[in-house]
């Protein structure tokens, strides 16, 4: 079974700061594999272990993305492709998807796996775009994956409950929390990763983006609530309990 996994390298979202002066977000230099994408990598490796085959990781971005790809190789993927783009956020999601779809077209595959959305821009649009561009059926929010014969049996979380969905292969699946527990690269895996192929390719076709966006800023505070600050804990607690009683929220 040949599996392609799409991943994105993102700044560590636990370390985002808001600059008080400008209201702008200050991102960490620490770059990681976007969290849902790690589930996609893990699931691909488990499928390979069970059914054999090859796992190819594809990402687009600047040279720093090699770190994310190397980590995926250390986890056990067989090869990686970096589509070179100085800044993926200069393109809209459809332009990025076209670039990725073009790379996927060049290799044989039975499955394309991706994370549900990226930790940073969270649009979750690139995988559905790719599915359409490759004319693949897609299933998102995948929490469980079984293969019955030639069919995929997928469990997913939706608004109304837990859904079981059936799809043929090839297909594109979007992974979410609960699918698995991503492994850490072993020392052996880290050593082996150095010898695995990591190809750098030119991005093509880069088509013009139809969306442009501003640098993210903190919205203006619109609260009309009471905010208690710089008070000793006991005093703040007294004020809260007084308020709770006034609102008849506690007896």
């Amino acid at each position, binding site marked *: 079974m040949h599996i392609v996994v799409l991943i994105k390298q993102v700044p560590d979202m*636990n370390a985002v700061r808001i600059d008080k002066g400008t209201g702008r977000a200050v991102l960490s230099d620490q770059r990681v594999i976007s969290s849902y994408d790690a589930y996609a990598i893990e699931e691909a490796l488990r499928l390979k272990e069970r059914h054999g085959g090859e796992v190819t990781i594809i990402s687009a971005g600047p040279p720093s993305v090699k770190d994310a790809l190397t980590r995926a190789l250390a986890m056990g993927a067989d090869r990686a492709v970096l589509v070179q783009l100085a800044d993926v956020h200069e393109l809209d999601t*459809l332009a990025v998807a076209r670039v990725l779809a073009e790379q996927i077209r060049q290799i044989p595959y039975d499955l394309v796996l991706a994370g549900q959305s990226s930790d940073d*821009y969270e649009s979750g649009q690139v995988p559905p775009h790719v599915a359409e561009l490759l004319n693949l059926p897609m299933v998102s929010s995948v929490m469980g994956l079984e293969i019955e014969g030639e069919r995929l049996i997928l469990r997913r979380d939706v608004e109304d409950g837990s859904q079981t969905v059936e799809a043929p292969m090839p297909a594109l699946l979007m992974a979410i929390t609960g699918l698995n527990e991503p492994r850490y690269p072993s020392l052996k895996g880290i050593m082996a990763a150095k010898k695995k192929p990591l190809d750098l390719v030119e991005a093509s076709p880069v088509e013009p983006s*139809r969306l442009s966006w501003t640098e993210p800023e903190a919205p203006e505070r619109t609260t009309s609530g009471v905010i208690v600050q710089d008070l000793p804990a006991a005093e703040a607690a007294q004020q809260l309990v007084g308020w709770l009683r006034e609102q008849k929220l506690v007896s």
Partner: protein
Amino acid sequence: MAGIVVVGEVGAGGLRPVSWEALAAGRAVAEALGEPLVGLIMGSGVDEEARTFGAGLDRLLVADQPELDMLTAETATAVLAAAIRDVEPSVVLMPGTTLGRDYAPRLAARLGVPCAADCIDFAVEDGALVAVRPVLGGRVQSVVRFTGEGPWLATVRPGSFEQAQTASDASPAPEAVAVELSADDLRVSVRETVEKQAGPTNLTAAKVVVSGGRGLKEPDNFRLVEDLARVLDGAVGATRAVVDAGWRPHHEQIGQTGVTVSPRLYVAVGVSGAVQHNVGMHGSDYVVAINRDPDAPIFKIAAFGIVGDAFEVVPAIIEALEAGRG
């Protein structure tokens, strides 16, 4: 090109509330562009929902056929593509649900048009649609501008808009959308949907919910949340971050990929208030937030906020509550 198409979504309990939010957003865009407002409902046996949704609109499109009973990204994309071919709208607003966020980008790629995900506000500037969407965990927002040929597509984040009021006007005559589903459109099939069970804490029905987030630093510190919940006779909830970290079970997770709660009182301890959390509790009557970071977005939705150390403040609250009861 003319018209703003707003897609409503029919769930297990009828029209989802986000349908009315999308409609409110769509109405404002239609007025700004001076174009008609067109509703669209798809499914099987959705006649009644369509009429309800269509009240007061300029046009109402309905795709009602058995194959659309359990919609998938593929069937919904086929319906939307057909409707867009007929109506040639300039803007299409779709619900930011699991389904909407599947088919909207799929549709965008089919038509080669731009799509903005999960928008919380819209405006029209110089004839172009502009959308606001939360990014980087929801603490900041980006303004997205559409350019070039339409239709321009966007999904509407649930819980971001006031729900449009049902107009008393009669519904326009429903226009059937003729959809020819191909074999490719039917590749994914839904076997079954098992409705959600409330967790052991009965979180969804609780009058009081006390939830904890990353600010608690360690799993053991969650006893602060449990203690406060006990004193307030409430249920315990958790953010995605602490569930992902394995501190708490998944059924306690509040937010986009967890449960939605709407208690009378919601107390957030060490919860920053990322959008994916807030969508799961924005229906709460009173929100109390305790957090060290004065800029935490949770304070924007809090009726009462304490900027301070949860490890000091929470025990003090428990003490004050118990003292009051003698």
